[in-house]
């Protein structure tokens, strides 16, 4: 059985279709090899920001793998997320060096201030708070990344200030659109 490619069957929003085309590109690049599942999931997550059921099903059809297999791989690795992410992602490093220097306290206070648990997104969808096991920047401990930016030698105050600045940007952009 040949499975039609997304680009020919998917209707609806243009952006959605474009994202599937990115997945198709990566599928073609790896010649639909089943062993390349992780690479395909990487590119799918890059395109969509997360992996929902529709995407996982699509990948399993294209690679001719059982959906349970694809789901199993997607949930095994911490990097893949099945829930949509917030506009901004804050990753607090909880490696040993950061922990010794007080990252545990920072994450606890952030959870309190943002009213969100680590690993989930704020109610307004503006920020996802995550933790990491070590981002390999131990000399900057305690450190965190806000989107792609690395912020080193953080204190409780500086972290909250940085996050508020980001969220203010979102709010300003939203207002401008209105």
């Amino acid at each position, binding site marked *: 059985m040949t499975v039609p490619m997304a680009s020919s069957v998917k209707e609806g929003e243009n952006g959605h279709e474009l994202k599937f085309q990115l997945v198709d590109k990566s599928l073609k690049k790896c010649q639909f090899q089943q062993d390349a599942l*992780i690479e395909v999931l990487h590119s799918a997550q890059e395109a969509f920001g997360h992996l929902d059921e529709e995407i996982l099903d699509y990948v399993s059809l294209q690679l001719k793998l059982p959906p349970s297999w694809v789901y199993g791989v997607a949930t095994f690795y*911490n990097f893949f997320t099945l829930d949509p992410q917030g506009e901004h992602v804050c990753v607090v490093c909880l490696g*040993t060096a950061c922990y*010794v220097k007080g990252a545990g306290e920072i994450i606890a206070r952030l959870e309190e201030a943002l009213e969100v648990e680590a690993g989930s997104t704020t109610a307004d969808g503006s920020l996802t708070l995550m933790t990491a*096991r*070590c981002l*390999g920047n*131990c*000399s900057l*401990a305690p450190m965190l990344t806000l989107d792609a930016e690395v912020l080193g030698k953080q204190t409780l105050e500086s972290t909250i200030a940085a996050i508020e600045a980001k969220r203010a940007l979102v709010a300003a952009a939203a207002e401008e659109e209105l």
Partner: protein
Amino acid sequence: MNLTALTELAEQELQRQQDLKLRLFLCYSTPCISAGAEAVKVALEELIKEQDLAAQLEVVATGCMGPCSRGPLLRIVVAGEERTYEKVTPEQACEILLHGLAGNPIETGALPADIPFFARQTKIVLGNNGWIDPGKIEHSIARDGYAALAYVLHEMSPEEVCNEIKKSGLRGRGGGGYPAGVKWNLVRKSPAERKYVVANGDEGDPGAYMDRTIMESDPHRVLEGMAIAGYAVGAEQGYIYVRGEYPLAAARLTKAIRDAERCGLLGSRVLDSSFNFRIDLRVGAGAFVCGEETALMTSIMGRRGQPVPRPPYPAQSGLWGYPTLINNVESFANVAPILHRGADWFAGFGTEKSKGTKVFALCGEVVNSGLIEVPMGISLRDIVFEIGGGLPDGGQFKAAQTGGPSGGCIPAEYLDTPVDYESLKELGSIMGSGGLIVMNETSCMPDVAKFFMEFCMDESCGKCVPCRVGTVEMYELLKRITDGSAMLGDLETLEELCGLVQETSLCGLGMTAPNPVLNTLKYYRAEYLAHIEENCCPAGVCQLDQVPLLKLPEHAAELAIFKEEN
């Protein structure tokens, strides 16, 4: 490209570098960028454009120089004398450039040339770090990059290469310490139509970033080591498995592979010989257990990264059932220097059983945190107090943690222990991949043990029962100790459980997960007892606001209130 072309290219590049009046080396690794290296680079470039200096000098954006806590770092060489400036601002950088060009470099902000941080190090693996732009293959070639590969391909047989590695005494730098030469020979002798070489760059230990720095600062060194390994064992395909958390390393390796292929240093007919070798990059997706070799291989094959029982060892049956040589990135980075300068030269460093050098990520409560490379056998005291400059703010040394969640804490009385595989093992810790975290008296040992146990609990892949269930139970016990609800019996249960998990787990993760607990129990038992018997945390970290279940009758009054409320 052939051997002559390679030498020519190296000479050409060296000549170009010598013709320049001044070369500035700006550390452009993550810590320095976050400290402001980008602004420094922009300022320097603007100045060069403004005064039209491009023909006389160049700014090289290098990989990590080491003393990360002092960034941004800028290094210049004037009249054969090198100067490294710390905490450089854009204005200072322009001044350094102008004075350097005039031949009278400024002294303010320069690190003294003889500070122990540099003087006590021996750089083999990190030899090129801070001297080359990792994105430019010609920089690497000018510093003897791929020369060892060229020599090996034309002058040595695979057997000779394996024996040379064996003779050098190089041991696996990922933590296991298995003799690399023996492993290479095993793979070489395994009969198979296809073989693979895998570089393990899944550096999951918290507090360790040696492999990241090597891959980011000198990617060609790793590729060359892998190609030599491929020739030695008879493989034509290699994989580098990089952690998903290291996007910069992945990007630099991708570029390095492409550049090397374009120059004919990788791909088919490498350096005009009959040897073909391709390297592909695999990016991990955030699973600590994938650092274990069998789990890593299942992950390369696109599956859940769960380990499989050994034997068969990867050397007999690895990727897709074919013999596979799997070594750590740092081990591969040692290969080219060994073959370039000889096994005897390499064996001249280190101790009798541990040869060469080891890269450590020195961090935590220490003045000079950063990346260091020291000969094996150096004492812990020299690392922490000489190179590291001691603890900041007059802090008291309490422990040095090595080996991440598989290692342990070394107390102050063993500070003079030489750092090598055997000595650290005797102390109940391990060399590990090279994370070295210094702790002061504000760190609570049961809390640290709990921290690592939580890590192992989260990262356990769930395949074997001892690890899946054992880590959760051990974590619960440690949690009870640190929240005040533990009884003396819990300590016994904990110790028993540690032994059980250690003996019966499937892979290294479970086998070593109890190490931090056993090790801290051995050296800091009093601290555990203080938590349980006196209900106090000597370091002042734990809250201890709970009560042991069996003691609840003593708190009957509170219990009654609790019942009423519910």
